[in-house]
């Protein structure tokens, strides 16, 4: 939906409202996807939906109703139900008033090419991977998803925010016919022209071939060269854990022993800086939060020191701070080493392509477990010597970034396990000592 259409719809909804304050959120857009498996397209889908969310407040009481039926009668009913829910709800001591009109950064994350990509264009992208794989006697599987949508927020105090964005992701896993080798490659962007399906396919094919018949080596602590995707898989858990309230309440890694939080405390290597920027040219993010608060660039960690935690409006007010929101992008600083140089400088270590089934084990240390997948290799005397069986690890990205040896140039990665666009993550390849692999996996 365009800006004017959203504005008109929001006005229509607000005209039905009788609550003290009303907020209308409109999400609209289309999603298209094509899946391929065993070198052919297996399923696909195209859908369009538009939903309206109505939040009604009477004093400190509020309720929310979501609907995708946009005729007057349905919207009037949704507003009525939302107001009834609000009246039935107990007073919320933490309720915050709606914001008045705000000024936002201009959103830029729209690509017409992505928005107009049709099933046959998606099928062509899939074929750029499946045909070389089939010609090579390998089995390719993969997924291409495109999203094109708009998000708008309006309220009874005159606030109006609007942004439209496109996003897409293409990932592929190529396996050998005998099932002894597997390689992966993936990329995300808001702009389809920045993706090269054939190059991704070639990378996954190369990894599949090189990973055939992996050998088992002992689990333990190893020097590890992480490709950027593997770094992205783990680093996003740090920013996800940076909520100020949990930290202040004593139930987070960012809680300080004895009380308070770790703002101004050094937590990782001084070469590490992590930021979010809705106008990052490689990964445009959200310019406003769910309650209409403007979002701008935030430095979470600077030279290893915590600079900001995320504060919602209530907690910021209570703690005498400014509200700080997450814009859905992460950028980590890098260095000048190439992956080849990191390998060349390693006497014995492991190269990791990506991780899988990452799950929290201990929130006190941001300790996660998960497994390597689709391209894990042994480094001996400065070069990759053989594919190895996958490992399970139990370690924390915090420890990982304290044991940093080298960093490369940051690139945008496909950091979501599910292969969708996910949050935009830009991270470097890194080399780390003493990463904790705890068991072997026979999975390929």
């Amino acid at each position: 939906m365009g800006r004017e259409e959203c504005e008109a719809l929001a006005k229509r909804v607000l005209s039905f409202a009788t609550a003290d304050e009303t907020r209308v959120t409109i999400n609209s857009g289309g999603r298209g996807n094509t899946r391929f498996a065993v070198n052919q397209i297996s399923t696909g889908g195209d859908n369009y939906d538009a939903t309206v969310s109505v939040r009604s407040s009477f004093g400190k009481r509020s309720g929310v109703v979501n609907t995708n039926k946009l005729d007057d009668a349905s919207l009037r009913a949704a507003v009525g139900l939302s107001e009834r829910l609000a009246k039935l709800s107990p007073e919320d001591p933490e309720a915050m008033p709606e914001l008045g009109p705000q000024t936002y950064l201009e959103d830029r994350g729209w690509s017409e090419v992505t928005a107009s990509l049709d099933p046959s264009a998606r099928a062509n992208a899939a074929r750029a991977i499946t045909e070389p794989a089939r010609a090579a006697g390998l089995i390719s599987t993969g997924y291409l998803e495109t999203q094109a949508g708009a998000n708008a927020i309006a309220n009874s105090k005159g606030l109006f925010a609007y942004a439209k964005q496109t996003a897409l992701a293409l990932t592929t896993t190529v396996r050998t016919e005998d099932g002894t080798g597997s390689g992966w490659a993936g990329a995300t962007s808001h702009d389809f022209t920045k993706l090269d399906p054939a190059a991704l396919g070639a990378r996954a094919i190369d990894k599949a071939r090189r990973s055939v018949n992996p050998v088992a080596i002992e689990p333990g602590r190893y020097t590890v060269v992480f490709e950027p995707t593997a770094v992205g898989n783990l680093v996003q858990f740090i920013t996800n854990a940076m909520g100020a309230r949990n930290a202040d309440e004593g139930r987070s890694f960012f809680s300080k022993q004895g009380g308070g939080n770790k703002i101004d405390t050094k937590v990782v290597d001084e070469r590490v800086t992590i930021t979010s920027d809705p106008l990052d040219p490689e990964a445009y993010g959200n310019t406003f939060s769910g309650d209409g608060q403007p979002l701008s660039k935030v430095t979470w960690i600077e030279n290893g020191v915590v600079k900001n935690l995320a504060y919602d409006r209530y907690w910021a007010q209570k703690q005498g701070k400014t509200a700080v929101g997450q814009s859905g992008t992460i950028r980590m600083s890098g260095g000048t080493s190439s992956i080849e140089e990191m390998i060349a400088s390693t006497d014995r270590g492991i190269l990791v392509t990506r991780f899988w089934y990452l799950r929290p084990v201990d929130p006190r240390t941001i300790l996660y477990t998960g497994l390597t997948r689709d391209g894990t290799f042994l480094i001996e005397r400065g070069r990759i010597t053989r594919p190895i069986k996958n490992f399970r690890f139990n370690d924390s990205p915090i420890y990982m970034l304290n044991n940093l040896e080298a960093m490369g140039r940051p690139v945008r990665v496909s950091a979501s396990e599910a292969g969708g666009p996910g949050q935009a993550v830009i991270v470097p390849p890194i080399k780390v000592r003493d990463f904790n692999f705890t068991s072997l996996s026979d999975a390929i």
Partner: protein
Amino acid sequence: MVALDAARSAGAQYADVRISRNRNQSINTRERRVQGLSDNETFGFGVRTLVGGAWGFAASSDLTRDEVARSARQSAAQASANRAALVKPVVLAPAPVTREGMWRSPIKTDPFDVAIEEKVALLLAANEAALKVRGSRFVNSSMFFLREEKTYANTDGTYTVQTIYRASPSVSVTAVSSDFSDFQARQSTDIAPMGRGYEHVLDSKLVENAPRWAEEAVQKLSAKPVEVGRYDLVLDPTHLGLTIHESIAHPTELDRVYGYEANYAGTSFVAPPEQMLGKFKYGPEFMNIQGDRMQDGSLGAVGWDDEGVQPETFLIIKNGVVNDYQTTREQASWLEWWYKQQGKPTRSHGCSYAQNWSSVQFQRMPNVSLLPGEQNLKWDDLIAATDRGIAIVGDGSFSIDQQRYNAQFGGQLFYEIRGGKIVGMLKDVAYQMRTPEFWNAMDMIGGKDSYWLWGAFGDAKGQPSQSNAVSHGCPPTRHRGINVINTGRGA
């Protein structure tokens, strides 16, 4: 019928249409406040078409005649585009036609008829009861209800109307040590989400149970860190359901076995079927794993699946040996050789599911349950028979590889067993396992009186990832000599 006619005219050899109205309500609280109260409804339809052996799918929320016909044509056009890369055309196994089927979850009270005030009051009373326990600092509680009204029709002539309900009450209590050096949470994993109505919330006795969850959270602060090593594990059904989900239910999904999910969920070690069916020893002889979408009150229960097939009960593992896989109509024909050998008809087990109208249906797990043992053993019998072990209650952290070999599971509560008795609480426990060894190390199983139905809403699979809701029933079990690690490290 507009959709099916338009699909046929556009060249589809087969088509189906699902129209769904999905209403859900969630209430979230923490301590003495309601954090969120929302009521959501989404309505729309999806048309799936098969053209020249390739699938297409299109969905829309605009249920007008023109839009339905347009979506059907769009779906068929997409199927034609997808045919370009076709290697092996889709063949559907035959399915009996249901002309006019009606089904409704067997609920007593429609949760949408219960006053919001009553629900809020119940949650806040549970929070209050938890906060009365000394040392408990934070409590979150919630209720989630779903009602899906689904109408389905296909070009074979099947037409069904179903109303499916699900209910999920939950509580989580966090205790923080006085010096902020430790915090521990206890989730109410002894209350599973179910395919029931509001009666499930009342039966869960949140207010009565809340003080116990709070006490257990506080106890965890002073529990003894586990010593790493090999232990005999006694696993409660509130824990074991998740282990069954990850290590048995997922690897026996037939699409994974044939590589269709290799790019995300992964493949399976239970492959190829020719070397597994009737041959591979998954566990001891008393191990029987049943698939079904019929168990009363289960999350997976339906009258017909999302391609109009009436589900059936089938044994995935029979007397410890792989006996079958989870299938849809497309997949059942892949195992025709096995069914012929067994003297069984080739038919889908009814495992087709889509999370909503806008998502395409594909193979999803049914309820996958471990059947109770013949001796009617109970939890206490298993503890009493164990000399040195750890008893685990409730599910916690979980992770498993893409072929379902190597897994790691935590839990909610861990108890040290010495000489047949529980002697104290442990913390920072997780076990690591290799699936076939873990199940073959099972040497004791509880009976029918200790069988319990675990459940999960968030079973993820597919691209785009879709969420499935399933139950896994099981009795308690004992597993010998399992590797236990300590997950605690100083910050």
